[in-house]
């Protein structure tokens, strides 16, 4: 049987409970009963003790060579199959094909990584990858998905729900920030950024601040972070165009410790710069409205 098929078919088969009657029917239906009415009787205790006893060790050692050889053989053919599938998953532009692969090769990490990385992956497949417990245990797959430019807001939500890994969430944050600048659907991604900006993880929330569009949240972040301990986070707030004016003005008047300035986190400078840009854009708007 093909590896892919066996992986997909044997997902949830467990021993079934049966009554004697049902057993009898089943055995007859499938022709499983012995035609001559005879059955070999083995002493299970003896067998179990042979398994659990230490004397199995020698036997095992004598078979190690065969085992190693077999594993090598299996791995070689296995690797070739996987390699082919991976290159297919990397290069295909057909979303349906990718979805099919996600279903068939759920247990093949390398294939799933390639699928998650492909930019043509459809929203359904993204959610399948994020939700399927067989797939979402692999960190690299989730990383690839989080960094995939075609990830949708829904999939981001699922990833945030499923993944505890700050690295995966960081990818989500970067993508969401990038997307929040677009006109269409920007609001949705800005909300995701807002959610991530409240995260306990310093680097993650810092990365997400750039995409936040909610002035109240930005004010809250500015109030709750100190200039000494988290200057880079404040710097991001100062760079954000949606920070309220009064917050920016307060920031621009900060006297900065020399250390932070040498590290490049000049919050006051950023705030001043942002204010300057805003002033100019307002002037430009006024001019436009005048000329109209």
């Amino acid at each position, binding site marked *: *049987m093909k590896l892919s098929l*066996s*992986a997909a*078919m*044997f997902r949830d*088969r*467990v*021993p*079934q*409970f*049966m*009554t*004697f*009657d049902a*057993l*009898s029917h*089943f*055995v*007859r239906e*499938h*022709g*499983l*009963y*012995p*035609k*001559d*009415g*005879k*059955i*070999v*009787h*083995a*002493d*299970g*205790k*003896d*067998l*179990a003790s*042979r*398994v*659990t*006893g*230490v004397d*199995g*060790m020698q*036997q*095992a*050692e004598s*078979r*190690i060579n*065969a*085992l190693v050889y*077999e594993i090598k053989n299996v791995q070689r053919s296995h690797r070739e199959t996987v390699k082919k599938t991976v290159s297919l998953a990397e290069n295909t532009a057909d979303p349906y094909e990718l979805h099919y692969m996600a279903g068939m090769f759920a247990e093949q990490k390398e294939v799933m990584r390639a699928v998650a990385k492909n930019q043509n992956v459809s929203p359904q497949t993204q959610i399948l990858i994020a939700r399927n417990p067989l797939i979402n245990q692999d960190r690299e797959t989730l990383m690839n998905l989080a960094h995939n430019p075609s990830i949708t807001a829904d999939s981001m939500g699922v990833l945030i729900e499923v993944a505890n890994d700050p690295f995966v969430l960081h990818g989500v944050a970067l993508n969401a920030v990038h997307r929040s600048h677009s006109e269409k659907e920007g609001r949705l991604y800005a909300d995701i950024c807002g959610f991530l900006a409240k995260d306990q993880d310093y680097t993650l929330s810092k990365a997400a601040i750039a995409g936040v569009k909610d002035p109240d949240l930005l004010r809250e972040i500015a109030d709750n972070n100190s200039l000494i301990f988290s200057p880079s986070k404040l710097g991001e707030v100062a760079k954000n165009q949606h920070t309220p004016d009064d917050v920016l003005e307060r920031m621009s008047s900060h006297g900065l410790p020399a250390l932070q300035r040498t590290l490049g986190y000049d919050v006051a400078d950023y705030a001043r710069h942002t204010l300057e840009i805003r002033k100019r854009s307002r002037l430009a708007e006024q001019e436009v409205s005048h000329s109209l």
Partner: protein
Amino acid sequence: MLPHERKRLSELASEKVVELFRVHPGEFYQESVTHKFMLLLQTVDRAVVVANGPVIYTGLIPGYDLIVLKKEAEPFLGVFEPLDPRAVSTADETCLALLARACEIHFASNQNEGESPLEGVFSFLGEDGLMYVGFKSEVKDQVLRAVGVSPDGLVPLIREDLQ
């Protein structure tokens, strides 16, 4: 039973054991039980290859029997696999006792209402055409009747056959 089925079943069994007894550290112990159970199933399959027909194992896990049935028309697909050395070096008697206790709870939890606690078996049909039927030792005669074995149809297996 194909290797992946064996692995899956062993994982289920070890999950059950760890879950029921809250063994710490769970993860390590679970892996060890998985290996042991896999080895047990592997040995069972090996005996089926040697016997080339249906086999009953009495008391494989203390208090529980196992019957392996096989379609007569179909050739046996299983391969004579080498044992897993990791399992051999870590196997012990405690594991069997734990599995027996897990079986007891598992059987008790899967009774339909209104039936006495012994009425029934757990069965699994492998993809290679072998069927595994597990049951309590007390109901052996009933199960044998259900699978079509005549009362005097037991053929003892000679120990040397397994080696």
